[in-house]
């Protein structure tokens, strides 16, 4: 079996995988990182979104061998020094989740949006979330959370200047 090596949440990891192993299976079953969810397993719902080399991707639609040598970030990699990431904090404060199943994917997807566009409009947030489905919230508070996180992150960036 091939061995894959990648950096996951800043830590270098290796494992033997069958080539048909999906990245999400390697993360959840190989590494025990169960924060990344599998909703549809058919590339539709976005519950499985992680970052690979800085881009959000559906980890149910990528093989672990394709991520060999890559930098992977999952929801577990966002909080730093016991502090929730501003996106996590904003979802908490704005009731951005109900059952929470879609939340890791929502956060990992919107993280790429805020990295590219620190000040998105509501319409831009909604459009960006095209590939993320939520069965509970009606999206309203998810959008509100992302806009709140964007404002908080801009505030921190300004304070640092």
């Amino acid at each position: 079996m091939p061995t894959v090596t990648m950096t996951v949440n800043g830590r270098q990891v290796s494992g033997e995988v069958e080539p048909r192993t999906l990245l999400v299976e390697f993360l959840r079953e190989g590494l025990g990182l169960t924060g990344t969810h599998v909703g549809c397993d058919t590339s539709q719902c976005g519950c499985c979104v992680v970052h690979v080399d800085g881009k959000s991707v559906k980890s149910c639609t990528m093989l672990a061998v394709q991520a060999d040598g890559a930098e992977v970030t999952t929801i577990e990699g966002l909080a730093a020094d016991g502090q929730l990431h501003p996106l996590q904090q904003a979802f908490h404060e704005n009731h951005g989740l109900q059952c929470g199943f879609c939340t890791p994917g929502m956060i990992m997807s919107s993280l790429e949006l805020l990295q590219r566009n620190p000040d998105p409009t509501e319409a831009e947030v909604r459009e960006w979330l095209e590939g993320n489905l939520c069965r509970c919230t009606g999206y309203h508070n998810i959008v509100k959370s992302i806009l709140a996180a964007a404002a908080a992150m801009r505030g921190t960036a300004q304070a640092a200047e």
Partner: protein
Amino acid sequence: MYNFAYHRPRTLAEATQLLAANEDAKLLAGGQTFIPTLKQRLAQPSDLVDLSAIAELRGIREEGGGLTIGATTPHAEVAASEVVRRVVPALADLAETIGDTQVRNLGTLGGSISNNDPAADYPAGLVGLGATVRTSKREIAAEDFFTGMFETALAEDEIVTAVHFPKPEKAAYAKFPNPASRYAIVGVFVARTAGGVRVAVTGAGPCVFRARELENALSADFAPEAVEGVSVSADGLNEDIHASAEYRAHLIKVMAKRAVAAAG
């Protein structure tokens, strides 16, 4: 998913050798169509040859006044490219409408056209612009490349390397997306070129096609109103849970009008 052996060659020559040496080998690009296919056990390749590490297959450059886009260039890169925005903005707009962010981050031009889904967007862009497909063996005019539903002129061991797009005078793409998948229920690419007006339709039939009646009308008068008097036949158009053939015929005109208006 059935198991397979995985290869990630660094050169086109190596990839071609791997295909030649393994009869049931298949290419893997962004995987956004092929991995779902493998999961459903609709394919059983012995080997997967991943094209992602072959540098010569990726990237966007100006060439001969037009654009050349490498086969493994992801949709997101085309949508965000300043060169594409400047030379053929309609193509960047088209790429922006494909699927969702995550599909655009991995899905590629070469994968999309080789798959030739009847509802895919790029085939309309290629035929509308009169593009040329470059492969490991030859050059193929876009119109000869797309031969039928999920069928292309590619041989088993042939690899798309790039697509060359000539620069049009004006062009635009208008799409009526399926609200769930974003695939085109009908997509119309309109281009005014030195050689005349070209109108390419995707989503409506089993394979992308040129709408000659619309081309004639728009050649006489490149304006949205010129579409009005044309009758588009529903014969042979797709019929499914999303839309009837008649509705698709209607949408072809509506999308053509919108595209002409957007092209300006």
